[in-house]
Every structure is written in structure tokens, then in C-alpha cells.
């Protein structure tokens, strides 16, 4: 092992990187999101996507959905680190549980005229994207689906006059009758 002189043992791990979707139920109190985000930045974890909203108003419970990447050991750490935070109720790895649905919403703005407009509308129909705003020279589409589908739609829109995209990030829920 060739490492520079150091008081620390430097080791590179070459385990494969995986993407996992985590659902985190938290007490909706001031600073709770900062805590979660601070954990990720402070410990060097990745956030690919993060969504949060209050889901049980009476109990002030919010649900955070995080898509993260890392080696299996890091993913396990992330879950434990989240779980031990005082305002966190539960952490569920939707990727490991295997039976989850993931959805994302995107609004896609296009500018163009003539043939490009027609082509965009045709593709939008194929992707079940709705027109939610239109002018004589622009459209805004609303599209829902998993991230791959939305990526694909955006790629197709690019040559047709794509102006900008706003995405919500991933929300996830398990299939079947059970709650988390």
C-alpha cells in the first residue's frame, strides 16, 4: 500500500456505488431539514434528490424522500445516522424493500414555432404530458413519472426549443396495504 506519509490510514474502497431511495418520517419542527441536510454535507454523503412536505398535519409529521448514492456500507451508515437523530421517527429504505413506486413531477418550458411545436405536442401526448400554459410561441408541459421517464422527455424536448425545467424531486411510497 502506497500512501503519503500521514497520521491517518488512507484506504480507498472500491465497492460498487448504489443508488437508494430513503423515506424518512420526521417531527416537523424548526431546523429539522437543516439537520438532515447538514448530516449529508457534514459526513460527505451524496444527495441526488430530496423532497419534503408535511404529510400528517395533526401530528406535525413530515415525510422526506431522499435519493442518495454510496457503497452498501455508506448507505447503511446513512440510514443509521438519520435514524438516531432526535426528531426522526423512522427511516425506510424503499430500494431494499423492493416494492416501492417512485414519482416525480416536472414542468418543462419550450419556445418555438412551426414544425417544432407540432412535434413537441406529439411527443407530449405520447408521454402523457399535459399542456398547462401556452402562448403563440411557447408551451409549458407538466409531466409525471419516474425519473428516467422525465429525463427521457427532457432529452427529447431539447432540440425542440427547451427553455427551462423545474422538477420536484422524487417522492416514493411502498406498494400494498401497509404504511411505513
Amino acid at each position: 500500500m502506497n500512501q503519503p506519509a500521514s497520521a491517518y490510514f488512507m484506504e480507498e474502497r472500491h465497492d460498487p456505488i448504489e443508488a437508494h431511495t430513503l423515506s424518512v418520517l420526521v417531527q416537523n419542527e424548526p431546523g429539522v431539514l437543516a439537520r438532515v441536510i447538514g448530516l449529508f454535507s457534514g459526513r460527505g454523503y451524496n444527495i441526488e434528490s430530496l423532497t419534503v412536505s408535511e404529510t400528517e398535519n395533526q401530528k406535525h409529521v413530515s415525510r422526506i424522500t431522499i435519493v442518495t448514492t454510496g457503497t452498501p456500507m455508506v448507505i447503511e451508515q446513512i440510514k443509521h445516522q438519520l435514524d438516531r437523530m432526535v426528531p426522526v421517527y423512522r427511516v425506510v429504505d424503499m430500494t431494499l424493500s423492493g416494492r416501492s413506486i417512485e414519482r416525480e413531477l416536472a414542468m418543462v418550458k419550450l419556445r418555438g414555432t412551426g414544425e417544432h411545436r407540432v412535434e413537441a405536442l406529439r411527443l407530449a401526448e405520447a408521454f402523457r404530458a399535459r399542456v398547462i400554459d401556452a402562448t403563440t410561441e411557447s408551451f409549458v408541459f407538466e409531466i409525471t413519472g419516474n425519473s428516467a421517464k422525465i429525463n427521457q422527455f427532457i432529452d427529447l424536448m431539447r432540440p425542440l426549443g427547451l427553455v427551462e425545467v423545474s422538477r420536484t424531486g422524487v417522492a416514493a411510497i411502498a406498494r400494498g396495504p401497509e404504511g411505513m
Partner: protein
Amino acid sequence: MSDKSHDPNQMTGAAMIVRALIDHGVKHIFGYPGGAVLPIYDELFQQDEVEHILVRHEQGAGHAAEGYARSTGRPGVVLVTSGPGATNMVTPLTDALMDSIPLVCITGQVPTHLIGNDAFQECDTVGITRPCTKHNWLVRNVNDLAKVLHEAFYVASTGRPGPVVVDVPKDVQFAVGTYHPPRKSDVHVSYAPRVKGDASQIRKAVALLASAKRPVIYSGGGVINSGPEASKLLRQLVEATGFPITSTLMGLGAYPASGKNWLGMLGMHGTYEANMAMHGCDAMLCVGARFDDRITGRIDAFSPGSKKIHIDIDPSSINKNIRVDIPIIGDAGNVLGDLLQVFKAEAKKPDIRPWWQEIAKWRARNSLSYKKNSDVILPQFAIQRLFEATRGRDVYITTEVGQHQMWAAQFFGFEQPHRWMTSGGLGTMGYGLPAAIGVQVAHPGSLVIDIAGDASVQMTMQEMSTAIQYELPVKIFILNNQYMGMVRQWQQLLHGNRLSHTYSEALPDFVKLAEAFGCVGIQAIKPGDLDGAIKEMINVKRPVLFDCRVAALENCFPMIPSGKAHNEMLLPAEANDEATAAAFAGGKALV
């Protein structure tokens, strides 16, 4: 209004804070006043149940509270003002988080309507302390204050203990609201640390231990944190199994250093026999330790042939650095109790005589040996003499950080838990002196010694003044080599002996400094003077600064060189220049 004024639970926020301290059995707090905590200080002035210890710098308050907590098992309490008061607490808070020390820190804050306005002495205390606390709160409503304070004590002292911050704006301190004594519903429903270990995992662990040929127990600070009962159970387990036991820096004292199964501390500056036993074992029982990088050495070569059991109250400690085979989440004492019971009922002491014979060979290498010297005091010798002189006494030891800390860990034998206060995880120079003050406050009749280095001790030296004010007879035993010894050691080993800024060209005359503070200064230069000087230090019933002049270039061995495994230790007898260069081969020194 008139009805409410007769309700004893109606009071100001400031009064609630003092009342909550009393309700939680707090006898001492460490603090420093300032604009944003004046109402609380006013309340403190008008009562005598809680004694306030005035420090000279907020960092000193934090470390003193850590020493207090570590030596009593109860949370240490700190009271500081907003802005610089809070930011000066960041180091002790981080230190306490790393070493799992329960602290409750109350900070003043500017009035709520000024928060975010860059007001005088304003800082984002909860933002700054979020990553260095177990949890923190900003209390915006006086009617939330009682609940938050009770929750703060609960969170700090349960599960894996740690520091918490309660930030209280000045207007909330003045406001009148309703107080209530501590009750169960004060705690976050989402916070429920697991205490009891899983029975089937414990059974598996017992089966592994019972069939072990080369077992080792590796214990840590979690055993101390769990309380005296855990140390008792650990000793019983060692007795019942006959297994060898080693410990981390934080865990010293849980098993007595005079115990026959004791291998000494493990890790980077641990004993050869402890590290070799870790490397060669077939079953490892880790209890209340976290496979820290100072312990494991090279991770991919760490104890390659063993099955590992890991008992920890914090699930995030499991599989963080080292994959284990049998994780058991729970409180060290609780799980040890169950484990011991199952072991006694279902297993018998395995015959591990060949393993002990192997260990005896490693022991015979005498890895803590050093060359005697009759001209200059060797630091190892100084600590051995200090240990001998204090043996059998009611003694508490704190340290700063560096070579002296490792020598103290190697050469001072601890027989009981809660007697050893040191900054392990964060490695905070300047910890030991204020920590000693905190320990002395908690144990006024005991002998409290800070084994210090000349560099570290200057970082919080101003707290000698605190010791004088409260007549706390702490002994500051400085191993003075005029170097930042541990940094210099690394420069010698890894940076071509270029001693960049590790020599203190100008040191204070510690004896005169002691006199300036109003305490006693003692100096020892020759080995022959040492015992007498130590005796004098112990007998003086006042704070002492002891300037122990030691061999300047002595280095700390044995040592696991960087990037090496437990079985590649550098022993003192072999640590000549060539062997050292070879041990660090592959490093920058040879490239």
C-alpha cells in the same frame, strides 16, 4: 392576573431555568456571564441551591463540565452568553460529542425580534452547534421552556450520551409563563434509544465465545458511560470466561490495570500483546467501543481471522468501519448482564491455555520498556513515579493531548471507572486543566491531577485563576519537553525530521507563573529530585503547577506506523533510525 400571580408555577423564563436545574438535581454549573444571560444570572444570585463556578473563558467552562460529567456519570451543565460565549463553546461541545459526554449547555440569545438582524453579540447558535451537539433547541416561547429543558437533560444523559444546547433569547428569559416539573411526556416521541439487547443475538454471541480458542475482549468508553454496574459486569464476564481483555483510551479503568487478564491499552500506542491478540484472535467481543481509526490500524488487515461481536447503544457505530458478525444494539451494562447470565447457564469456561501461552510470549517483548536514565527525567519514568506515589489514594487523572497523554495511558494504572478524563475523539489540547477543575468541584476531597504537556497546558492556562478562586487544589503535572512532542514525533517519522514550528522558543517560567496566579510552583529537573517533589505536590492543599523537566527528544512507543496493521508494530527497543525509516517505507520519507 391576580390568580396567576399566586400560582407557584408562574415564573419568568430565567427562573424556570434555575428551577429546572434544581429539579434535575444539579448542584454545580460552570459559566460566564454576559448581556444575553443577565436575567438568569440575576436568578442565580438569589438562591443557593445551585453553585455557579465562574471560569475565565467559556471553553474552560465546557471542559470543566466534561470533567464533572465524566467523573460523576451525571450531566455537566454550562451557562454562557450569546455570540462569543456560544462560539467559544464549540470546541467542548464537539469534544463531548466525540467522546459521548453528557452536557447541557444553556446559551443566551439576543431578543427574538432581533434574531437575524446581526444584533450585538448575535450568532446563529443553533446553526453553529447543530453538527456538534446530539440535539439543540432555540426556545421562542416561554411556555415551551420547561418541556425543552427537561427534554434536554433526558436526551443528553440517555442512549449514547452527548452534549445538547438550549438557546434562550433574552425576552424569553424575562417573559412570564407556566413551569412544570419533569414528566414523561416532555420527551420527543421520535427519540427512543434501545437499551435491551436482542436475546437471540446474545445467544449467538455466547455460542461464539464458548467455542473460541483465541478470544479477546475489547472494551471502550461505552462501558464507563453505562455506569459502574457495567464495569462490575465486565469484570465478572472476564472472570467467568477467563478471556484476555484490552481497552481503548476511553475505556481505561472499566477493567482494573492490576487484573490478571489485562493486556493493556490497544491501538496506535497500545501494548504489543494487546494489538497482537487483536490481530490473532478468532473471536472478538467489542463492547462500548467504535473501531476508531486510532484503534484499528490498517482496516483491510484488521483482525483478519476473527468473528466479531459488537455491543453498542448507537446503531450507527455498527459496521461503520469494520464489518461485524454479531451486532447487538443495547446498553453495555444491560447487554453484559444478559450475556453473562446466558454464558453462565449454557456455557463453560473454554480451555484457552495455548492462547495465553502465546500472549505470554508477546508480553515478554516488554513493549513499554524504555532506557533508564539517571541524568534526565524520562517522561515515562515521571508518570511511573507519579503512579507509585498516588497508589491507593483517591485519585482522578485528567490529561491534555499528545505524548504525555499516551504515556499517562500506558504507565498510569487505573483500577476503577470514572477516574480517567481525557480527550480521545477530538484530541483537544487544553482539555485537561479545566477538566481537572470540574472533577475537583465534583470531588472536593480527592486528589485530582492533570498530566499535562507544556504546549497543551498553555491553551487553557487562564483557568488556574478559577482554581484559586474556588480553592480547588488541582495538581497540574507538566511534562515539560519544550516541544509539541507528538507533532514533532510525526515530523521526525514522516516529514524528514523537519521540525516545523514544534519547538517552543519562549516558555513561561511555570514556577513564577504559579506564584503569579497565587498557587504553588514546583520544579523537578533531576530524576533524584522527582519523588520528593511529587510528594510535596500531593501534600500541598492548594493548586500546584508542577514543572517536570523531561528528556526533550523522547518519543512515544510502541507504535503502529501509518498504513500498517496491528502485527506490524514498532517496538521501543527496535525504534532506531533505520528501523523507523523501514517501518514507514512507502511513505513520503522514501519517495
